């Protein structure tokens, strides 16, 4: 009886700290969201897909407004040049210059790989804020490279989410994720993203390089490098229309 009472008291004493930790974790996640999402952005990037035998690089320029509108134009290689993608409120269209046709990517096609990379169309589509989808809990601290990070465990609070849980290593000073593990409901690690080359742009910290890996698959992963990014720019509305895909 005495032992039980001691345990109960100990639990009651630690409860406020646990809540505090959860609050801290969600506050950190909020700061991560503030760094990673923006009202609008114009970005030039290269995506290198490391296959088992060879690698290939695709460069693109994209324009984005909030989390619902995005327009991407592929610039190289020649085989992909002129291919355009438009995301509008959960719908995705692709224009291919070789066929001069616009097709909507939906259903099962959303799960296909983008240009043979480790990213699916769905991965690209789902850019909701982490705080909208996950509850965070701080589970430790660790060094990633030479940066001190806090480790957040994210559990889905909505049902329509691809990854049931995630583990996020967040730079303790800059509030930028440096490593992200995505798990299946069973706890199986499915994908890992490692971010680096963190730079300050318009007062916010942003990783310029990200390495995506499908952890169940062999291969060197997909390296995503930002060559130029600008936030809070004037982006004309007509860009986010199907008509602009054929222009």
């Amino acid at each position: 009886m005495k032992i039980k009472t001691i345990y109960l008291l100990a639990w009651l004493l630690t409860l406020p700290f646990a809540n505090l930790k959860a609050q801290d974790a969600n506050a950190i996640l909020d700061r991560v969201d503030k760094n990673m999402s923006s009202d609008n952005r114009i970005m030039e990037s290269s995506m290198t897909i490391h296959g088992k035998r060879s690698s290939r690089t695709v460069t693109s320029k994209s324009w984005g407004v909030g989390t619902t509108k995005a327009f991407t134009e592929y610039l190289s290689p020649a085989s992909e040049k002129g291919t355009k993608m438009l995301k509008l409120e959960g719908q995705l269209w692709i224009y291919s210059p070789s066929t001069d046709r616009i097709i909507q990517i939906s259903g099962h096609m959303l799960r296909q790989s983008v240009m043979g990379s480790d990213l699916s169309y769905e991965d690209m589509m789902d850019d909701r804020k982490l705080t909208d989808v996950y509850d965070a809990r701080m589970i430790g601290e660790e060094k990633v490279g030479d940066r001190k990070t806090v480790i957040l465990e994210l559990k889905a609070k909505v049902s329509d989410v691809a990854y049931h849980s995630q583990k996020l290593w967040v730079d303790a000073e800059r509030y930028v994720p440096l490593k992200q593990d995505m798990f299946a409901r069973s706890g199986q690690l499915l994908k890992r993203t490692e971010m680096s080359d963190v730079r300050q742009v318009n007062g916010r910290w942003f990783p310029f390089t990200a390495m995506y890996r499908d952890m169940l698959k062999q291969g060197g992963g997909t390296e995503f490098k930002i060559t130029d990014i600008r936030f809070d720019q004037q982006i004309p509305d007509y860009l986010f229309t199907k008509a602009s895909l054929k222009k």
Partner: protein
Amino acid sequence: MRLAIQLAYRNLIGAGLRTWLNVIVLSFSFVVIIWLKGIMAGWDHQAKNDMTRWEIGGGQYWHQAYDPFDPMTLEDSHAPIPSALSSEIANDEAEPILMVQGTIYPKGRMQSVIIRGIRPGQTLLDVPTQSLDTLTEVIPAVIGSVMARTSRLEKGDYAVLRWRDVNGTFDAAEVLIADIFASNVPSAEAGQIYIPLEKLRSMTSLQGQATLVTFRDPEPEREAIPGWTLKTKAELTKQIDELIKTKTTAQSIFYFILLLLAMLAIFDTQVLSIFRRQKEIGTYIALGYTRQQVVGLFTVEGTMHAALAAVMATAYGLPFLLWQAKVGWTMPMDTSQFGMAIAQTLFPVYTVGLVVTTVLIITLTTAIVSYWPSRKIAKMNPTEALRGKLQ
């Protein structure tokens, strides 16, 4: 008529090598045509039998959204099992199957699969689902030999299987390949992985649901169930019928060429006989034969080639055909890539109807080809013929 047959026989035997060459060519046509038709009948029988045993049973009820040619439909192709089928399922007379899209990662490679949930204790299909009762911490799974070859998985191997639940959330677990089967039915094997039905239902939060229900007895009259489409055995094997029909048409061209060669030889023989035996024709008429009787005599003589060919074909063809029915014909290419239910070794099936029809068609064709040049006799002047003058 008897005399005509006797005369025809003597003339044919008297012609020696010329007759036997014709008979050999014609007998070859008999054997090849019966063998090829037997192969087609055997394929038809084997394909439908294998499909029944491994995939379609006596027919199926499909969820109304299910389209096997469109994997995108799988996401919405599931519903609670209709109560009208509950008793049949309880009596093992029908088998519910739930189908979900997934991805398997055998040794770090990625392959799209359709996960089929099936009851381990089922007896309706030959799929070795009893192996799904294997006690293991991971999910026991059964795959076909085609899938095993493409994924390079062997019995006892482990691989990670990834799927999505009803909300689209990823889940993944290890599977153990508990057994591998070979069925000759690519649609039951290629890109398919069988796991226990209840396990798949719990994995996907689709309790009590199925994509299709296979029933055992192909009863002709089955009631319509709202939300489900009845697919009879005839509908499900229609593809086989169509393919065999196409193949048979293509083969007919080969039969035609084969028969054409044999008939050309007989036609030439008849023309030569009439040309060289004008005095004989004149003598027959002088002895009181009507012109039509002489035409009949020559026609019987030509047709007798077919009769002799049938006897010769029986002599060497029967042992060959029986041997083929026993050992079958193994195709030189890999049939699993055909996408159709076709065995690597086809066993010909010869029916009485097939043999009789083939013999009748060849004999009738030979009779027509024999009669055709013989019509000239009817126009002959018997006096000139007796003198052996060319007409």
